[in-house]
């Protein structure tokens, strides 16, 4: 598979993951999918896609930090 279709599918996978991450209240599932998203972001990075530096902060900005 060439680079462009790989990138399309990876971006699509990230979008699907995000739906579940936003909706689940199961910490295990949320954590597993955040790790999966990290690896998908890493795949994008290593295919030379101009993605962000720290995807994990994107989630936090939207969803709040660890409780004090």
């Amino acid at each position: 598979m060439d680079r462009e279709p790989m990138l399309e599918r990876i971006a699509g996978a990230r979008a699907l993951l995000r739906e579940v991450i936003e909706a689940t209240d199961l910490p295990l599932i949320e954590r597993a999918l955040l790790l999966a998203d990290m690896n998908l972001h890493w795949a994008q990075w290593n295919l030379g896609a101009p993605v962000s530096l720290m995807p994990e902060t994107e989630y936090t900005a939207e969803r709040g930090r660890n409780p004090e």
Partner: protein
Amino acid sequence: MAIRPFLRNQETPFWNRYYETMPREQLDALHLHRLRLVLRHAYDNSAFYRRKLDRAGVHSDDIRTLDDFKRRVPLLDKDEFILLQEERPPYGDTLAVPPDYVAHHCETSGTTGISLRIPYTGYDTERYGEAWCYAFWWLGVRPRDTFYFAFSWGLFAGFWSAYWGVRRLGATLYSGGGQNSEGHIRMIQKLRPTVLVSTPTYALHLAEVARKTGVDPASLSVKFTFHAGEPGPCAIPAMRRQIEEAWGARAGEMLGLAEVHALAPSCPTQQGVHVDETGCFSWSRDPATGEEAPEGGVGENIITTYVNNAQPLINYQTHDLVARYNQCECGRTWAFFKGVVLGRTDFMTTIRGTNVYQAAVENILGQIEGVSHHYQLVLTRVSGLDRMCVRAEPVPGWPAERFLELARIIEERIHQALQVRLEVELAAPGTLPRYELKTRRIIDQRPKEVRRILDRV
């Protein structure tokens, strides 16, 4: 029976052909994009970088070319961080993430004897580990290989990062933590790993220990040896020959700085290392002129990491002198350092994987009552291991019956501060050579063929 998810394409010599053979123009365009992201991240989130970049009058939007970056973004040295970390432990205001993002903490030697503390996020550790996958794959290691780590886990990042790499590769890991040298040999005989991970001098030492117990290390299961922490088989051809003959294996190495990244895996040609350009941006600076060194010329390796986002390092002075090339016969387009690191811009050496700065030893000696400021650091190699002896002079009038006690105090203080045991010899007052301040006091008595190129003069 569970099927282990090994990779389909294991014949390719590339871990990621797309990136490893990316044309230079495309690599540089990506670097420019990513450097701007790093600058923005550091400025927005680290008080230290806000101050530094405001003082320099430069921000991410001002960086339109890589030349802008090299010339306008100020250089960074390790000491700047150490001071801030000491004022406000653990990290001062160098941190660029909220503390609850820090997933792993390591430390590395500082120039004055105080360690630099290094935080990593979880994702930082994954990126850090990935560089090792290139190194392993290029040498011929595959996920079915089994790794034996001949060291104990501690605060130093080097072999932690190799462990992260083995996890990413999907291989098997055996920890040799807590074993002495004979124990390592017994474990290797029982577990039959195919890859030995250690410092290069320790691999030679282990081979000698094996032979003394009647075991030929070349007859064991090890097919590859992998090294970091010291000049290794791609820096010193004599060392490569010794390791490969001793173990009947192929030897590779990783050039890394704990606080930065495992930044350059060894080339399959074993003539040097390639900068991992997915994980950092590197350029060479002539220390005499401050200008960019020409291709093939010796310059200081200046690094900006994409891998440590907890504590960004931007235009960071490594003090490593390298000869950088844009071409390599292996076909990879990543910058190539022929001979790895050729020397240092400062007075630092590495003993059993620990960086020892002349200034750090000097500071420690300066704090001990009874010790004068006359000293030498003598490097030798014994049974394959590098040893350093601190020759110090007591102050005039120090009673001879207290020499032994003083030597022990020096040894203990150095060990506490630098996490390495150095031998200590006291010379009679007035007998050591007198040096000008700030001159090199490291006397290298090791055979020339085991020293870095610039250390052989």
